[in-house]
């Protein structure tokens, strides 16, 4: 099955099937949703297998006329970067469904609505990475806010509606800035040979450097809010704290990647000169994000907020890798996006199980879980090790690549960012020590360990983390040509590695 359109339609069919299940049979609803996501994941893997790794052109290209009056097409196609992210999204989806089997209870609406939202979101997650028409990308970019908004506001906990609104307003604001830039691109394309939204054609536009700078900012701010980069990150901890663990996985693991993906696919491709102009500033923001996110993570008492802040630090690394403008940096950033999806998933899912068992998300309420619930504790430990980029874990490979790629061109930034790794050890080891080790805190004696369903859900995540940690080649073979292509298009050549003797 090699049609991206069909792949996007599958979850929609699944959501129709979910809608058709009788209301009383909640288990059936969940099974249909799980089956759908599994089929989508299998189809994606099949696509990945037939993907030509050395071909840097877009593959699986499809194009249908959508709104000819404005030159808008429903155009999709993927390169190595998009493939990796779609793969990540579709593998995470069944894991989220299985892991959060009971998340949909206690929401404002029925179980059915929850899974319909999840499946519609999955369609959009595939579409947002596959779109090669800027208008189509924008439509999905904005439209996917709505299901997430209802997932947070309807099924979350605590201040869920406030968090959902904050998330939506931030994202809409960024999106509207991007819309202004898109309108400008559209009008310019009309002046230079006919209205179009084709990414390839738009990247050939001639524009003054002032125009390019402004349009770049329109896109970049939208992506920086999404990613999220300091100082536009404030919506994320609230959203992550209020959302269900599964929703958080999709939000941080997939949706936020749209930001970093967009930086590569849209900012760099459409505005190469402006990207170079703004690189110094963006790198500073990235370094601040790394250190700031890490420091705030250390200070968190709430487990979910802690994970959110670690992600801000990690997104700093990804952004730095992108704007280091070296092929290692790019490959590292892309691999980081993939790995971050899984390590965050592991943290959120295991953290979510701990929280739901204990009935509290305060780290101090846990303690001595290692003795009471060894499997859960070990899973959390491994997830934490992945997050702090321990060698042997997948994140290590990508973090290393990003730092190497950055160092050759921006040594100072790379050195400061390296402190982020030290801080990462702190923000992971402190909660690990508090929650897992030491004497068992009162009230924790009778916590149950992971059940079979939860073990099945977490096993593939941890397996992927360790497998990529030891053998990242299969992914890098897909990523490297795409990264080298982007860097070459920008007119950069990798600087020779700095010699230590110099």
């Amino acid at each position, binding site marked *: 099955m090699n049609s991206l359109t069909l792949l996007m339609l599958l979850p929609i069919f699944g959501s129709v099937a979910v809608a058709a299940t009788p209301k009383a049979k909640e288990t059936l609803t969940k099974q249909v949703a799980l089956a759908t996501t599994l089929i989508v994941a299998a189809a994606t893997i099949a696509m990945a297998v037939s993907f030509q790794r050395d071909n840097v052109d877009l593959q699986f290209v499809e194009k249908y*006329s*959508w*709104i*000819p*009056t*404005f030159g808008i097409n429903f155009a999709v196609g993927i390169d190595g970067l998009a493939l990796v992210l779609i793969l990540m999204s579709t593998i995470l989806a069944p894991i989220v469904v299985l892991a959060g089997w009971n998340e949909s209870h206690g929401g*404002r*609406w029925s179980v059915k609505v929850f899974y319909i939202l999840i499946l519609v979101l999955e369609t959009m997650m595939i579409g947002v990475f596959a779109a090669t028409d800027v208008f189509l990308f*924008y*439509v*999905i970019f*904005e*439209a996917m806010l*709505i299901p997430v908004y*209802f997932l947070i*506001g*309807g099924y979350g906990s605590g201040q*869920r*509606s406030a968090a*959902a*609104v904050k998330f*939506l*307003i931030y994202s*809409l*604001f960024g999106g*509207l*800035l991007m*819309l*202004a830039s898109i*309108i*400008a691109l*559209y*009008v310019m394309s*009309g002046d230079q040979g006919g209205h179009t939204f084709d990414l390839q054609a738009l990247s050939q536009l001639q524009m003054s450097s002032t125009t390019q700078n402004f349009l770049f900012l329109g896109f970049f701010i939208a992506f920086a809010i999404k990613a999220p980069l300091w100082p536009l990150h404030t919506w994320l901890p609230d959203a992550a704290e209020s959302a269900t663990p599964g929703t958080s996985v999709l939000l941080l693991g997939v949706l936020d990647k749209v930001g970093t993906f967009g930086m590569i696919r849209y900012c760099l491709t459409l505005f190469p000169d402006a990207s170079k102009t703004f690189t110094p500033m963006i790198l500073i923001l990235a370094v601040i994000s790394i250190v700031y996110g890490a420091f705030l993570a250390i200070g968190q008492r709430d487990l979910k907020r802690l994970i959110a802040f670690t992600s801000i630090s990690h997104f700093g690394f990804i952004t730095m890798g992108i704007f280091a403008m070296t092929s290692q940096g790019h490959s590292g950033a892309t691999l980081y996006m993939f790995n971050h999806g899984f390590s965050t998933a592991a943290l959120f899912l295991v953290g979510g199980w701990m929280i739901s068992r204990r009935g509290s998300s305060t780290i101090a309420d846990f303690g001595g879980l290692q003795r009471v619930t060894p499997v859960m504790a070990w899973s959390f430990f491994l997830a934490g090790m992945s997050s702090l980029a321990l060698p042997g874990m997948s994140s290590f490979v990508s973090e290393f690549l990003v730092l190497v790629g950055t160092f050759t061109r921006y040594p100072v930034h790379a050195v400061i960012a390296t402190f982020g790794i030290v801080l990462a050890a702190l923000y992971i080891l402190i909660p690990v020590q508090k929650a897992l080790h030491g004497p068992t805190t009162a009230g924790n004696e009778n916590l149950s360990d992971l059940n079979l369903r939860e073990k099945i859900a977490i096993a593939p995540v941890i397996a992927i983390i360790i497998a990529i940690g030891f053998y990242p080649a299969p992914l890098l073979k897909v990523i490297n040509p795409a990264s080298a292509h982007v860097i070459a298009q920008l007119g950069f050549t990798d600087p020779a590695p700095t010699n230590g003797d110099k």
Partner: protein
Amino acid sequence: MEFSAPVLNYTLLSPMLILLGGALIGVLVEAFVSKALRPITQLSVTLGSLVLALVQVWKIRNEQSTGAAMGSVVIDGPAVLLQASILIISIISVFLIADTEQFTALAASLPGSEEERHALQTGNQVTEVYPLTLFAVAGMLLFPVSNDLITLFVALEMLSLPLYLMAGLSRRRRLASQESALKYFLLGAFSSAFFLFGAAFLYGYSASITFAGIRDAVVGSGGNDVFLLIGIAFLSVGLLFKVGAVPFHAWSPDVYQGAPTPVTAFMAAATKVAAFGAMLRIYYTSFANAQWSWTPMLTIIAIITMVFGSLVAIAQRDVKRMLAYSSIAHAGFLLTGVIALNKAGLEASIFYLFAYGITTVGGFAIVTLVRDSAGEVTDLNRWKGLGKRSPWVATAFAGFLLSFAGIPLTSGFIGKFSIFSAAYESGAKSVVIAGVLSSAIAAFFYIRVIVLMFFTDPVEDGTSVVIPSSLTSVTVIFSMIVTIALGVFPAPVLNFISTLATFIR
């Protein structure tokens, strides 16, 4: 003195003539048909006339003529599109007006008087709202096809006078309703005076009252004459009043709130199409060559209108007032289409007007459904938890709000995109940036209503959603389908508009 008989092209004028005929029949029905049969007869006559008029508009869609009524009426592509939009919006509004519960039994009686009570008790419901609607629609059809200032003024009065009356017909809160009608009338009369003043100056400048004559004068003189400037300024005041642009908007929140909701829906949607239609015609044809005299002024007004409307809407606690300020903001967005002054701007404006009009009627149709024992509940705090009580009604309203906010996959987004890109194309970048930013502000208050409906627990105060009548359901469902369809597959409608949307001069 020799008298030459006027030559009228009845085919081209037939949509308006049908409506006027229907309205006169309606007046007779009011007088002669028994009270039991009156509502259904009136409804049939009204709907019949509107549908017939729509069929006629469809038949003349490829006609182009300035000679329909001795040069006073012009029929061309935009005219057909605007007339069809007005008629479709009117038809679905009449479905709402058919709910006689909303209207006072005897408008001529004093509020709270013995007479009124008597009329209510005996079920002696007058139904003059139907012929009034038809008169107003006829005026609205004439407004965007007028080709000289006198016809334009007659059309303006013809659409306004019935609306003044209709605003005062509410059964509940009659005093507020009558107050809003009086306010609307006084301010409307005031703006008509401005309009006439402007028309007089334009005549003084060009020695002609026809649009073509004014255009010729503008082309000949370079468009920088003090008479012309005064004329454009005062004429604009009259038109901007009708579309509710800041600073001529003060009437609209009160009138929207006071008028019976079906009338508000009709007025908000159809008047906007007619007024913007007329505005587009006169600015695109007569004043186009003097654009440097009026685009700066209109740009400032557009920016102020959208920012003001969006900001003040945030503070509203009443759903009808909120929608009123939202319509002010939308008037600002629509003005960018006038400023654009290119074919894309014309097409975008027509699309936007149609899409916005349909969504507006749908939104107000939902408002008519939320009631307690004393009538409609418009206090937003009492809409809390609506999503729990009646998920479908709340979902539909959320859909309309998302369209107002311009979220992709709704008609509002396509409208906004097309109108902003047209404005950008003409170089009006400041308007586009202001438009995008005020859209962000506006999104906030639309989303707040969604939060109230879905994420807040219901309050037990007797607020409930009545089961919609079949006619109201038709309106809601039709509006919803159009809103989504124009958001997902706008291509056929955009193509149709683009083949027709060229003004003839």
